[in-house]
């Protein structure tokens, strides 16, 4: 009887058992990649050359050396940017772009969701069109436009360009604001609150979790992004751009042995990893996207 019951249960959970097995394989793969990187970043280069995967004494000096070996020459050879500056550029780039994009997107979606104005349909349609009607290959034109507006190769140029309401997060915020009862707004208006007060002191605090989640996700995206800074702000290399050059153009970027490059990878990875540990729940909070209707 017990055997029969077990058989039925095992049949029921066979599907989930297979998924669990795949998940375990995935976890092992990810951890082995991380382990190899950490182990190699702590190897003395001669030891690495003798045996790339063997055990050897830990050599923490790579992390210190990376800060001096990890550099990039910019402004036609007039300036050298070291890892410390690159991390600062990364912070400025990621913060400004994430804030700009999040604020514009949240304000626009709030207005479209809560105000009955004829322009709403136009704004919503532009978002949907930008998502479902792909316009490919606009990069050269974007570069020309950035040059025309003096945004090319400046530290805050990408922030201006990224401060757009288009994109998936508009729909995320739109769904959030639509789901919010109008009673809060009406009550505040009766009590004499102005439009700006209602938005800032009543509505936004109610959705602050979603806003913070979007901000954090955007921040990570921009922190890790190397292609935009590589094109639009090459004299202000972020850590991701620096690492890219450090890994693929070692001739341009100092003496880059494999353990040093791995140490560089870890230095770029660690701040985000710490952020992730502290804000894990926000990173993986509930964000919902509905269908593309309209």
């Amino acid at each position, binding site marked *: 009887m017990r055997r029969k019951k077990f058989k039925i249960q095992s*049949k*029921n*959970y066979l*599907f*989930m058992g297979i*998924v*669990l097995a*795949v*998940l375990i394989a995935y976890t092992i793969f990810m951890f*082995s990649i991380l382990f*190899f*990187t950490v182990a*190699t970043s702590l190897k003395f280069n001669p030891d690495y050359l003798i*045996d790339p*995967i063997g055990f050897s004494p830990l050599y923490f000096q790579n992390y210190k050396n990376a800060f001096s070996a990890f550099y990039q020459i910019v402004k036609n050879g007039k300036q050298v940017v070291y890892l410390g500056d690159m991390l600062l550029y990364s912070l400025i780039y990621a913060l400004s772009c994430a804030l700009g994009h999040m604020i514009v997107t949240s304000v*626009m979606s709030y207005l479209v969701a809560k*105000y009955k104005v004829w*322009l709403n349909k136009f*704004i919503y349609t*532009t978002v949907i069109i930008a998502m*479902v*009607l*792909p*316009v*490919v*290959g*606009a*990069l*050269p*034109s*974007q*570069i020309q*436009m950035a040059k025309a507006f003096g945004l090319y190769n400046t530290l805050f140029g990408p922030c201006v360009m990224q*401060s*757009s309401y*288009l994109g998936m997060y508009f729909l995320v915020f739109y769904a959030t604001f639509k789901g919010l009862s109008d009673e809060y707004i009406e009550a505040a*208006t009766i009590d*004499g609150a*102005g439009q700006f007060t209602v938005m800032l002191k009543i509505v936004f605090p109610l959705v602050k979790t979603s806003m913070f989640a979007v901000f954090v996700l955007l921040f*990570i995206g921009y922190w*890790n992004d*190397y*292609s935009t800074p*590589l*094109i639009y702000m090459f004299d202000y290399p972020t850590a991701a751009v620096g*690492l*890219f050059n450090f*890994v*693929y153009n070692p001739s341009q970027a100092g003496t880059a042995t*494999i353990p040093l490059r791995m140490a560089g*990878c870890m230095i770029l*990875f660690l701040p*985000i*990893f710490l952020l*992730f540990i502290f804000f894990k729940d926000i*990173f*993986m909070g509930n964000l*919902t*996207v*509905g269908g593309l209707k309209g």
Partner: protein
Amino acid sequence: MKRQKNSGDVQTKFELFLSRISDYFYNISVKLHSKKKNKGEKTVSMASNRKKQLVFYFSLVALPIIHYLIFYVGVNINSILLAFKEYVGVNGVVYRPVGFANFERFFQEFFHGQMLKQMLVNSLTFYFVGLIVGLPLALFFSFYIYKKYFLSEFFRVVLFFPSIISSVVTAFMYLFMVDVGLVEIMAKFGVEMLPPLGEPEMRMPAVLFYNVMMSFGTNIIMYSSAMTRIPVSVVEYAAIDGVKPFKEFVSITIPLIFDTMSTFLIVGVTGIFTNQAHLYALFAKSAGIEVQTFGYYTFLLTNLGVTEIEFPYAATLGIIFTLILVPLTMFVRWLLAKINPDVQY
């Protein structure tokens, strides 16, 4: 008597006079008070409130719309114009019109060469592998997390992990792990193998594997969030009826998150020709033709040189791909709307 009467009249007239003065000042006082009251308490009429709403709305909407007009509409119009030009860059002339020469170049290269054909095959391969392998895996994993099975929270973190790491870091880690780590480990077991990413025949499967491995993060969050919105009562009824996990996944979960799925599927189609497949992070400018996609090629055309010489051709490719993708996306959208169970909950 008469004198008395007269004095009485005078008194009455005087009182009347005083009372009139008093009334006069009282009226002034009332008027002043009512004015003061009106000033203190704003009278909120529907019309003025609507006016304020509109002023607020348009003052906030103006800049983002100007931004949209410049950086979306303007950029795309400029891109179309660019496709009909040629870079000169001498004697103060930067561009000159060349008609359809860039389009002719594309069709020449496509029909008489192998490179662009190979790129088309690669772009479609990346898309379909993502659709056939990546999407089902993402849905299964999301379902596992949503059902809170064994170690689901831990797997949620592990699956999200690649999303927080720069693709430069993950690409280099993977490159090292596969081309050095794996080769060395196999050598320890006496198996000789060539580095997969360095070997043209093995490169495509290795890059495809990497792309699938790195694709779960945000998708898992979105899908599992959508699944948590499924009414508990529906799931409980299914459990009482003895519905097995796989049946629940196919018959309840997928139909109820179809809207979210279709959004991602449509966005996926729009990315067929822009997907770089992490090639720039894995190989910088030297990815072999056996893995190159149109997205990677367009990026190289824009980023390769110090001048804008290939900008018009890159813009031309963009227009051609857009002309292919617009009807394709519309068709996929129509198809998904047709098969959408459209369940309200």
